[in-house]
């Protein structure tokens, strides 16, 4: 379990050595946040945007997750090019209150963008349906948290550990308690399900299934790395216990790491949980 969690927490470092691209400027701040297609009370789909990520949650269809490796203006659009074998592209334009997105044909050359893609309109909503929020808020919150981690993992292992702590430190005490590690674990499980393109209910199930695993992971991680016995893990303690921090100094700042790695980590946690329960 300790190894599994350490690997999970160290994933940003392990995958920071991906081919470097130009540091993305980030999506325009006015566009970030949650958007709904159709009625706010019963949205056909929800789009959540952070600085370098977008996730489209469709109750009727597969989930789409973009982790942008490059973001650039294109005429009156902003073009985000995501990681992945097909390097999917997403066009965005709008204001703080109205947003339009489009997905160009995968065969369309960059020079021919934006082309004539089907445009999807989105609206700001003060609130979203409670079941939706309950199922996805924790996972959506992981997108900017992961970006904070990635941005912090550009140099020394200590800085990366601090970034991990900062991203998961809900109580703002500078350390990670078991519940906070559990929240990270659940968030990664949600992201893995989203990256897999699962339906909305699968994302909710991933978070739900990760609840117990997350708690267990958190408790065992604290037991493993809490050297001063205060029930929480500090960045110092994490660096001490994570040899790979020293051997993986990272590369270009803020590049998205492979989410397949996250899935491996979550799978390890689940497998370990089953092993513990079936003893």
């Amino acid at each position, binding site marked *: 379990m300790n190894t599994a969690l350490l690997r999970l927490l160290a994933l940003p470092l392990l995958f920071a050595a991906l*081919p470097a691209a130009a540091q993305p400027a980030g999506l325009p701040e006015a566009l970030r946040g949650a958007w709904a297609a159709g009625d706010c009370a019963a949205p056909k789909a929800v789009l959540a945007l952070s600085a370098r990520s977008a996730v489209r949650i469709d109750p009727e269809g597969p989930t789409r997750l973009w982790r942008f490796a490059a973001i650039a203006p294109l005429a009156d659009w902003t073009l985000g090019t995501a990681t*992945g*074998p*097909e*390097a999917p592209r997403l066009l965005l334009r709008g204001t703080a209150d109205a947003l339009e997105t489009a997905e160009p044909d*995968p*065969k*369309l*050359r*960059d*020079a021919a963008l934006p082309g004539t893609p089907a445009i999807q309109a989105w609206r700001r909503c003060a609130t979203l349906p409670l079941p939706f929020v309950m199922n996805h808020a924790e996972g959506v919150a992981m997108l900017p948290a992961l970006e904070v981690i990635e941005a912090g993992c550009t140099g020394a292992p200590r800085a990366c550990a601090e970034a991990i702590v900062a991203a998961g430190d809900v109580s703002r005490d500078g350390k990670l308690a078991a519940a906070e590690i559990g929240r990270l674990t659940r968030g990664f499980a949600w992201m893995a399900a989203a990256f897999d393109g699962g339906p909305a209910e699968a994302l909710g199930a991933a978070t739900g299934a990760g609840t117990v695993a997350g708690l267990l992971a958190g408790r065992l991680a604290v037991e493993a790395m809490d050297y001063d016995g205060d029930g929480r893990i500090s960045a110092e303690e994490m660096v001490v216990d994570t040899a790979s921090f020293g051997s993986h100094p990272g590369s270009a700042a803020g590049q998205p790491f492979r989410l397949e790695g996250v899935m491996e980590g979550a799978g390890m946690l689940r497998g370990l949980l089953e092993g513990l329960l079936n003893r």
Partner: protein
Amino acid sequence: MSRLMVILIALGLAAPLAAQTPPPSQPLPVRGVTVVNETEQTLFAIYIFPPGTADRGADRLGSDVIEAGNSFRVTLRTRNCAFDIQATFADGTEETRRNHDICRNTRIVFGDPDAPRREVTFRNGADMVLRELYVSEAGPSAWGNDRLGSAVIEPGAVFNLRLRSRGCSFALRGVWADNREEVREGVDLCAQPAQLFDRASLPRPQRRTLELVNRHLATVEQFYLSPSSDGDWGPDRLGSDTLGVGASLEIGFEAECLVDLRAVFPNGGAEERREVDICATNRLVLAPGWVVADPPAAEARPAGRAVRNLGSLPIVELYVSAPGSATRGPDRLVGQILAIGGTFDLPAGEGEAACRADLAAIFRDGREALLPAHDICTGEEIPIR
């Protein structure tokens, strides 16, 4: 004459009617018969019906069964005494007693009540599932039904069989998951009630070695080799190792000549080929097309040729044309793209006569990768960067 005939006919018909049709005021008597199951099996159904009747009626047990050694009383409202009684057992066999008089004999016994009961255990000592088990007192000429029914004996597991027979000598037959059989005759189950099936009597396949060569542009993470007669892939022959790009490895195994092969790659993709004759070679080259071509002979000129996108963007157009041709021809990807790291099989038969072709790949940013007069018949993937 005609009046006499009418009278005779009327009498002939009237007599049986008078005998069979009771006066409405007399109720049908209640008769009962106790069915005793002295066999070694559960009795699933009992049918009691007038002799010679095609319709045997409903199962008199309803939802009940009669376990071995137990009995069940069936009641009937009838004036008749003679019935055919048919029993159906757990293994599907049926036994019928004709013209049983339930008025004189209210008990009918299936099986031999004086036969001793025996408990015989069958242990699977092999590493393969024992799928069927036959135990016959009559010998191999009449195996009867599979004693396991829908069950199997897993490796290391034990199956308990109840037998009821005056004799001790039986013939045994076990059928394994690979359809091979072990048959033993004249086995004294009274003296040896614990039987072991471990494939020891089966001739072992010859020990063989096979050199695996990876000519793909991706690591082979797992490799499976199992007899074509086996429904299971068996263990990963690479164990904890992997077979890197360009690497080779010798694996040892016991198998007949015909085997099924399966290679698994890091992205979860797999390639399989069935019924490969490995007695004809001791070297297998995993290269594009190996799943459709003869492994050893195909190394020089494999049928399949694939390009792999090793660039940083998807390839959106791919052209294959004769060397020096003025036109590139149609986009081979048609409406698709070639994802980063993905492969695309060039159409079969293309360039079969002349293996050299001009390849042109257009990445999504417009960059072109050109491979003029490229030999596309080397059997190795064609990397495009």
